């Protein structure tokens, strides 16, 4: 670009003095450098566009429509940004230099500056037109989102608590209802209608691969819908600050082929039998004689409290403690022994069982699939 200033001098006939190279090149260089440095991190990280808690990796129509809008806005905004920046940098490039005692150009007040005014007005009109396009695009996308059919939808009732998700699969036949926690399974290709309640404070239900978020507000009931069009496990997370363990209030949406979903649902509807294995029986006995029953429900036992997550099929879940831990024996034991160490401030007290007891308890819980 070294010849550009000379071209400009000839074109506009203005006196031009060299601006220090550092300043002239520095601003855009530094900007480009910092941009490139941070933007290369994106493809370098295995993430953006491929992740499982990722707004740019849509797995259903809701997220897909939003991703289309994002692409349009990104392109339009980037082009406008580049053009304005170019005009700005060009203005800096071509301007002659001055000092504090350089006489100010007072003729600017007498000159009508019609050419400049025309440019400013044109730029404003173009901006307004482009903004209008963006508004239309936004409204268009809104309507596309509303058009998703909800006939034959799966109905799920979500109640958010500090800091876990209570899920009830609604069914006109009460014996076919499923109550679980922190993990949603849905069949691929079938719309899901989610009714949202909050038990305590405001939370937000967000699974970016599938849809935008919706807040769960105490005293109000709201709804959102989504559909998964391909199989996979997608992670969601609470997206409204809800207290000290907001960071670990995640959930899974496991989209499965319809047959697999039916199998899962059938298993969830079954009552876990009383175990015959002595280790498991000992674990069950320990559970029923501890304070666990004050908060948790396990179908087929006398433990029927609903203050904490339903544990009837806890062994079948991918994670524990709303996404904070993987679901394996070691993690479960650590969680039961001292939940405050893993999620400080959460509502579950510690249970420091003897090692043999803990082994039995964990074995029984893991058997609840």
């Amino acid at each position, binding site marked *: 670009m070294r010849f550009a200033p000379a071209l400009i001098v000839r074109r506009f006939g203005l006196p031009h003095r060299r601006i*220090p190279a550092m*300043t002239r090149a*520095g*601003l855009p260089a*530094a*900007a480009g450098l*910092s941009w490139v440095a941070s933007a290369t991190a994106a493809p*370098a*990280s295995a*993430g953006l566009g491929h*992740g499982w*808690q990722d707004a*740019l990796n849509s797995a259903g129509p809701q*997220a897909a429509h939003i991703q289309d809008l*994002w692409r349009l806005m990104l392109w339009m*905004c*980037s082009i406008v940004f580049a053009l*304005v*920046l170019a005009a*700005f940098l060009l203005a*800096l490039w071509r*301007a*002659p230099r*001055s*000092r*504090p005692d*350089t*006489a100010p*150009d*007072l003729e600017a*007040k007498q000159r009508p500056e019609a050419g*400049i005014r025309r*440019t400013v007005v044109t730029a404003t009109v173009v*901006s307004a037109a482009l*903004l209008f396009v963006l*508004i239309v695009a*936004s409204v268009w*996308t*809104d309507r596309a*989102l509303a058009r998703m059919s909800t006939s034959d939808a799966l109905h799920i009732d979500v109640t958010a608590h*500090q800091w876990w998700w209570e899920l009830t699969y609604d069914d006109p036949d009460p014996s076919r209802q499923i109550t679980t926690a922190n993990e949603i399974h849905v069949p691929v290709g079938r719309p899901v209608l989610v009714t949202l309640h909050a038990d*305590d*404070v*405001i939370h937000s239900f*967000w699974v970016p691969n599938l849809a*935008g*978020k*919706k*807040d769960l507000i*105490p*005293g*109000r009931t709201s709804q959102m819908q989504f559909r998964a069009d391909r199989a996979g496990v997608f*992670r969601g997370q*609470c997206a*409204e600050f809800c207290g*000290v363990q*907001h*960071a670990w209030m*995640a959930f899974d949406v496991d989209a499965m082929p319809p047959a697999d979903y039916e199998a899962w649902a059938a298993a969830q509807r079954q009552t876990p039998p009383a175990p015959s294995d002595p280790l498991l029986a000992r674990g069950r006995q320990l559970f029923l004689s501890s304070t666990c029953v004050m908060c948790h429900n396990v179908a087929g036992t006398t433990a029927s409290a609903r203050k904490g997550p339903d544990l009837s099929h806890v062994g079948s879940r991918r994670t524990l403690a709303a996404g904070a831990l993987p679901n394996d024996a070691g993690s479960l034991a650590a969680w039961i022994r001292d939940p405050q160490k893993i999620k400080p*401030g959460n509502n579950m007290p510690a249970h420091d069982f003897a090692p043999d007891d803990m082994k039995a308890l964990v074995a029984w819980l893991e058997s609840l699939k």
Partner: protein
Amino acid sequence: MTLRDAAAPVDVNDVPPSPDQVRSLVRTWSDPPGWLGWISALNHKTIGKRFLCTAFGFFILGGLLAAAMRLQLARPRNHLVGPDLYDQLFTMHGTTMMFLFAVPVMQAVSIYLVPLMVGSRTIAFPRMNAFAYWIYLFGGAMLYVAFALDIGPDAGWFAYVPLSGPDYSPGKRVDFWAQMITFTELSGLLEAIILIVTVFKLRAPGMTLNRVPLFTWSMLVTAFMVIFAMPSVMLASTALITDRLVGTHFYNPAEGGDALLWQHLFWFFGHPEVYMIFIPGLGFVSTIVPTFSRRPIHGYPAMVIALIATAFLAFGLWVHHMFATNVPELGKGFFTAVSMMIAIPTAVQIWCWIATLWTGRLNFRTPLLFVLAFFFILLMGGMTGLMLAAVPLDLQVHDTYFVVAHLHYVLFGGAVFPLFGAVYYWFPKYTGRLMSEKLGRWNFWLMFIGFNVAFFPMHLLGLAGMPRRVYTYPDMQGWGRLNAISTAGALLLVVSVALFLVNVWRSRRHGEVAGNNPWGGATLEWATTSPPPAHNFDAIPVVYSRDPLWDGAPREGQPSHVGGLAVGQREVLVTTLLDAEPDHRPVMPNPSPWPFLGAIATTILFIGSIFTPWAVVWGMVPVAITLTAWFWPRKRDAAAHLALEQQP
């Protein structure tokens, strides 16, 4: 009947004033000495400097809080800071920046500059000005004492109910936050009245509204926004305090209250709040660009209308903070449209600035560099703002790091960078010495690079699914790498601010001596010495132009300065609203300790009422006493005023 005692001679200023008259003016307008003088000081420059230092103090504290947050977030599952402390950190960071820094610092700069810019010896209501400063200081101090005692607020700077209500935030943490709001809103509202009256009534003769500098316009517009927006958060926080303290049910859905009521009231204030931070930044840009382009701004009327339009539209945007709630869909569409439309007046300003730069002759000194960075950073923030205005896209990126990126791009780019430019620009006026240009460039580049490295990755983090206000995160899909880069940028920012402080400290004693007008500026503050004398101008100038120092010389037969104002009393000239014609010449009050004592009494009332509602009743007594003593005229002052008196 005349109230004036004709026998007592009174010395008034000639044009130009004699050395005796100037000495008299200095004596009259200076702050008294000693510790009593320190609490009684009323000179607007004294209060302005205190205010500015306090606001920057809060900026540094808020920045250190953010540095701690960034260190915790640098790696997944980090254990540097636990969730309870982290929640206090981000609450204190947001609260400090939004309530204790961003708006107060703009008011602080205005308190010092606006009287000089409009050609006045003082700000309006100087005792109320002092009171507002003390209230601000005490409120901020209360909050930090609470934080230091580990009972700092932890429900976010926005304190959504029911989390911040009595059930889920027991103890006094949120009460300290809510009462801090009362302090800062009282201070802000009083300052707004002061600024409006100063601009409306104390302008030098000849400074018609058409000739008011753009920075002054931006502060006038901001003051009006304060008046209409801050009452909303005062109401919201008062209702929160009563819910927590005496059992009201404003936000309790079980008894007919509504959690969203808080959000409506808070954001009705909260959205104009960010424009109250942004618009003064626009004023800085509109001052620095013409000075360093050596030409008046292109399109002054359009610029003024753009400021007013932006302020007006800012009141119609607030629901865009609530798109994820179940407010009616049709309503959301309206707010999308207005949120996009507000870009238009800002765009007009950008085109006019570029036009000014395009046709100007540029002086690339540090103040201009900071303002040029504004163009880059604010523009990007505006683009992401348009994205957030679209409801569907907002539903993905709301409450994620995408918003954190956006808000820092617009606030840092739109306000902090221009503010740093303004400090480099006006430092010579405040202190008489220029800041180091070399250190300034290092400060600038480190800040620019550090800012972009810290905040650009957050756009990607938000799209990649990372929510806000989390004290840690799992090791997934590159979040760790992006967070680490962001932390590195944050540390660069810390270094750049440290460089700035070094530059300020050293330049005060060793900077190049500045003289009256080191930058060749056009506005009236450059017409007096650096720093200005206690009385600002030896004689008030008469104004004939928008750029008085460039083409404001009077023609043959026209007066150049105001004569006839008393030099032994704090007599000022009040002019008419539209055309700044001389109207009357009241006397401003003398230094007094009562604003300070009144602030102490008010502080006791406010802090006491966190603990018991009876503090409101009993606390009113010392407040009434101090305010009455403040008002009650002293015989000696009244006699002096009578000597100058002339009826209308």
